[in-house]
């Protein structure tokens, strides 16, 4: 029996892991020295894992990004913060469990942390609505960001959602308006904002807490304009073409880095962040502290101007005089 939740393409590892497990059992129940064999098999398994994870297709990366044991917003907060107080509610009648936030301390800095929150199992996911926030969630996030702005706390935003919740109540309460207001108001913030795509960044629901001075993304995270499933059923008229859509949409960190959307792609261990959550925490904490250090030297006006210019530059258009070649990625 494998000890962990294995993804489809990890299946070649199953047999190896079973062997390793059997030998461990043998070592426990007898005096036989198996350290040599164990080392050999573990090295082999590590190499296989390395091979598999160094050549993931975009569709496979989506599976890694959605892995139930991939570290979540609250996992990172727990890893980062010695002190942490979760804050609830949008002050308009709701407290969305799919978008969480609060104040905490990282090293010497007081910060505001917000992020989408998924669950690890079905029960948790029902409570967290699979990380799909309601308008109340986006309004709670904005209330907390305004609070951070008022008290000069840098904002750390963690993106991990299949998309904003699509439902009757969400429409009645103005899902579009809630996200739109966040997009506009985040340009007004006078404190540094660092957003990280820790899992999946699903469209407007991700961008609703994603207008940042720095956008970071883990190696196997994805960020999409529309889910590949939806894209495939609209453009290919066939939802089964989702893997093709995933490749065509250019949703991986390196793709988005070359398109000028993402500032830094953070490395993951072979097997993905679910394989080594503490290591993922270290990598992200180092990156966040480094970027905060850079941003803190800017005045609030410089911060806002820079943020505006950053988004102002996004997009590719041909003007009189440019040719397709000038824009080659």
């Amino acid at each position, binding site marked *: 029996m494998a000890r962990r939740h294995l993804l489809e393409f990890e299946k070649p590892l199953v047999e190896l892991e079973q062997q390793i497990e059997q030998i461990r059992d043998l070592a426990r129940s007898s005096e036989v020295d198996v350290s040599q064999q164990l080392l050999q098999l573990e090295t082999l398994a590590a190499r296989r894992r390395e091979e598999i994870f160094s050549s993931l297709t975009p569709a496979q990366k989506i599976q890694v990004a959605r892995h139930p044991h991939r570290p979540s917003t609250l996992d990172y907060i727990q890893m980062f913060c010695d002190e942490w107080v979760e804050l609830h509610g949008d002050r308009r009648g709701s407290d969305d469990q799919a978008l969480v936030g609060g104040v905490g301390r990282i090293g010497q800095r007081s910060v505001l942390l917000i992020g989408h929150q998924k669950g690890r199992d079905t029960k948790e996911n029902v409570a967290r609505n699979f990380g799909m926030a309601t308008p109340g969630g986006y309004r709670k996030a904005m209330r907390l960001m305004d609070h951070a702005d008022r008290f000069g706390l840098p904002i750390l935003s963690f993106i991990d959602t299949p998309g*904003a919740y*699509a*439902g*009757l109540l*969400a*429409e*009645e*309460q*103005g*899902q*579009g*308006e809630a*996200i*739109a*207001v966040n*997009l*506009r*108001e985040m*340009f*007004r913030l006078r404190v540094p904002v660092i957003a990280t795509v820790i899992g999946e960044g699903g*469209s*407007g629901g991700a*961008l*609703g807490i*994603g*207008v940042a001075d720095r956008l970071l993304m883990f190696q196997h995270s994805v*960020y*999409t*304009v*529309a889910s590949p499933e*939806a*894209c495939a059923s*609209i*453009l*290919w*008229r066939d939802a089964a*073409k989702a893997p*093709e*859509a995933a490749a*065509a*949409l*250019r*949703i991986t960190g390196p793709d*988005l880095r070359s*398109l000028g*959307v993402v500032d830094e792609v953070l490395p993951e261990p072979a097997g993905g962040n679910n394989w080594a959550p503490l290591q993922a925490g270290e990598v992200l904490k180092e990156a966040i502290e480094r970027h905060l250090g850079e941003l803190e030297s800017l005045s609030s006006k410089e911060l806002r101007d820079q*943020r*505006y210019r950053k*988004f*102002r530059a*996004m*997009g*590719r*258009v*041909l*003007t*009189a005089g440019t040719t*397709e070649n000038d*824009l080659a*990625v």
Partner: protein
Amino acid sequence: MSLFDWFADRRKDQYVGKVTQEQDEGDGLWSKCPECSQVVYRKDLIANASVCSHCGYHNRIDSTERIALIADAGSFIAINGELEPTDPLGFKDRRAYADRLRETQAKTGLRDAVITGMCRVDNLPMALAVMDFRFMGGSMGSVVGERITRLVERATDERVPLLIVCASGGARMQEGMLSLMQMAKISGALERHREQGLLYMPLLTHPTTGGVTASFAMLGDLILAEPKALIGFAGRRVIEQTLREKLPDNFQTAEYLQEHGFVDTIVPRTQLKTTLASLLRLHGSRPVEVVG
């Protein structure tokens, strides 16, 4: 370029037909209302802003007709019309995006899904963007984002109010995340316009959905909508799948949004220009001196 030149330019591009003519019955002189089946003289229909005089049904109109309804004759001057879409991802679904673009451009005579420019409404200056649903469902890619952003920046610099006529299925998937980022880019420009105390009004027309709803369509100081226009964030089918129950009949209509507090006023197209002029004056717009 004046609106007149612009019309002339489009004739050169072999532009064929208005959307209303697609509902043509017989010889082209007559038109049958898709809502109430009343047959009317096409000339009368166009004279009535393509609104059925019998039942009030608002036929879809294209960007040119919309501009003619809003701007004083000869006052619209298009800007940034030279910006052209490109294919940043090398995107191909069943067909290549580059081919789709070329074909849509040839068919519509448009370079992309929005026209932007400066104009006057009852001699009051205003920046105007009009999305055109005929161009790939009014989807928002880099050119739509760039043209609107430049228009908002110009409106901010010249301290004039702004109207964006929305008609869009949302972000243009073929340009991937660059399309999504246009939502943020335009919202950032609108923040600067707002900070200067300037008036911004989106007019939501049929349909306004997805990423456009989740950005500039919902950021107006005042939000206007056309009667019965479909306005929403998520698609009806997606919601029905999650909900497994029937949605109210008027779900995601302009009237429904007004009921829930997201639309300030529903303006019949025949009253659009007078309402706009009135709102501009009530917010301090002053007539411009006309030279020449």
